């Protein structure tokens, strides 16, 4: 049965697609896009069937080349990694559909390398999710990061500088992770996650393990833009091309958050990181500061994309807070928010891409109700996603915040409840500012010149459909949250939490 091999079959079509799409695209340019779409579709099929398989039969271990761990590398798909893999490849598939027309407009003649690099990017991320080996994780992390730098660098004029800064900070993050892994390897002598998890409680001396864990958290924190380490994020997301930021913003940082969950709760035990040495408390407090900081900075921004980038800092804070609470409700909130934020941030960045496609700018001050009249579907998608970001039921964003609030109460920390409520109010401020411009304001900015009047119309179908699917998904996932929590996330709960 080929389905037995699904853990390796999630990243493999993407890697092969990247290798095939580039040379064939050079030969005939129109071939690159169908190949990329097909590769992502195959990978999505295996991710979804893998998740269903795992939910029915339990965790699936796949030994590469039949070498049993800890000597060989193993890929593990359990409920958590299957779930994140579906999110990564699913969002990647929708953005892949979307990116075709967007790229023709923004980066003419560069579609072939862009599609190839975005396949590599998705391969790296899905590999990080399915691997059960800590060094293999580092390799996939670097594949994803290197392609992320490339995705950023082809944007507008200032993009290479943003990409270079991202590269420096990203390399520091990856190097710290590698150094921490070196310390862990020195004491445990194993690179396999489950094997390491078995050895760590047996160790008498904790000094080296603590150094290893600290370095790994700092490294992954840099990659996931956890609060004081987020400095690369706003520039990178703002200056990247629309399709590039639609790839990066929803899934890149989420996968790093997933890695943080794996390291804290699978490799190390919750009792170790929460009770013995309060690593999670530090993460929770930093995230709480990040939630407020990101929201306040988002209010201060004049550009839609830049505002969304700062709002990402704040939303990553929610995931960090859920991880830092380290109780079952906080864990549910964090994992649910990984999905919700991926879907709604993807919607928002696709909307900003649609607006950029027709108007050529995303400055908030220039929006008015012309935009809504000419682009009704895009505007509705924006409103749905914005309501979800604020956290208004029945959209998806409400439920993850709800679980986080319950988790904070469970932990007896009312300050976090206050932080979540306050940041929701701040979200209202910056999203309703735009909704107000779209639906009420009648300034004549857009219609000043007759030329622009003609060009504004709804975005092309291939860009509109993914936007709409994601916007509908925001509501559907909100309504189905109980099913997702019961059937997937509860079975992904790490033991000892």
């Amino acid at each position, binding site marked *: 049965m080929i389905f037995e091999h699904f853990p390796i079959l999630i990243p493999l079509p993407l890697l092969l697609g990247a290798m095939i799409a580039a040379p064939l695209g050079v030969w005939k340019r129109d071939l690159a896009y169908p190949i990329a779409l097909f590769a992502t579709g195959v990978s999505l099929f295996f991710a979804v069937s893998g998740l269903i398989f795992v939910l029915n039969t339990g965790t699936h271990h796949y030994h590469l080349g039949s070498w049993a761990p800890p000597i060989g590398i193993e890929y593990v798909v359990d409920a958590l990694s299957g779930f994140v893999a579906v999110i990564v490849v699913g969002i990647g598939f929708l953005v892949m559909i979307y990116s075709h027309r967007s790229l023709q407009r923004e980066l003419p003649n560069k579609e072939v390398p862009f599609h190839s690099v975005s396949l590599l990017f998705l391969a790296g991320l899905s590999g990080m999710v399915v691997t059960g080996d800590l060094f293999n994780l580092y*390799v996939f992390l670097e594949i994803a990061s290197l392609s992320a730098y490339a995705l950023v660098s082809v944007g507008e004029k200032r993009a290479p500088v943003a990409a270079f800064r991202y*590269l420096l900070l990203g390399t520091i993050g990856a190097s710290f992770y590698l150094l921490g892994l070196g310390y862990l390897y020195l004491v445990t002598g194993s690179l396999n996650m489950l094997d390491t998890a078995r050895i760590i409680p047996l160790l008498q001396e904790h000094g080296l393990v603590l150094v290893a864990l600290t370095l790994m958290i700092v490294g992954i924190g840099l990659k996931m833009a956890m609060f004081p380490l987020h400095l690369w994020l706003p520039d990178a997301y703002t200056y990247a091309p629309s399709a590039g930021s639609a790839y990066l913003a929803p899934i890149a940082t989420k996968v790093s958050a997933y890695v943080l969950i794996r390291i804290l709760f699978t490799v190390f035990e919750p009792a170790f990181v929460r009770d013995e040495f309060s690593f999670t408390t530090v993460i929770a407090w930093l995230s709480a500061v990040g939630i407020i900081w990101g929201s306040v900075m988002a209010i201060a921004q004049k550009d839609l994309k830049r505002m969304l980038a700062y709002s990402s800092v704040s939303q990553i804070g929610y995931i960090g807070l859920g991880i830092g609470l380290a109780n079952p409700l906080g864990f549910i909130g964090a994992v649910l928010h990984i999905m919700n934020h991926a879907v709604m941030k993807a919607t928002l960045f696709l909307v900003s891409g649609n607006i950029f496609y027709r108007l050529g700018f995303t400055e908030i001050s220039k929006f008015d109700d012309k935009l809504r009249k000419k682009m009704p579907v895009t505007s509705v998608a924006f409103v749905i996603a914005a309501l979800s970001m604020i956290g208004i039921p029945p959209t998806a964003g409400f439920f993850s915040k709800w679980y986080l609030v319950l988790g904070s109460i469970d932990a007896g920390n009312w300050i976090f409840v206050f932080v979540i409520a306050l940041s929701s109010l701040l979200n209202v401020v910056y999203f309703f500012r735009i909704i107000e411009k779209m639906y009420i304001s009648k300034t004549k900015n857009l219609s000043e010149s007759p030329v622009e009047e003609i060009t504004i119309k709804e975005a092309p179908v291939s860009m509109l459909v993914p936007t709409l699917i994601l916007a509908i998904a925001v509501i559907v996932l909100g309504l189905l949250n109980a099913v997702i929590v019961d059937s997937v996330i509860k079975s992904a709960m790490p033991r000892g939490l």
Partner: protein
Amino acid sequence: MTDFFIGHMAYYFIIALLIIGLWGMLFKKNLVKKLIGMNILQASIIIFYVASASKYKATVPVIDSRLGAINPADYINPLPHTLMLTAIVVSVATTGVALALLIVIYKRFKTLNEDELLERMK
């Protein structure tokens, strides 16, 4: 005490390299120097792995009949070296991407000095 210091000589060297690399990345104004700092940082980690696997008077991990019975202390663990082969490839790829970015930056802004760059990006 002295023995401890001498025995961990390589690690002090690695820490010094790591700090030099980080310092170069954070405080040097020239982007090429930042990149050199990044390479020093990566090299320090590679040396860390290699140093952690090395043993005094040990040999390559091929069973040698002259050594008699198989004793793990006689052989160097090959795994960290193998891992570092991958890490070196990653480091080379990162440097390549960074140099390509620097070329684009120089073509667009005609400078690689961070202060001037910020000035010209406004």
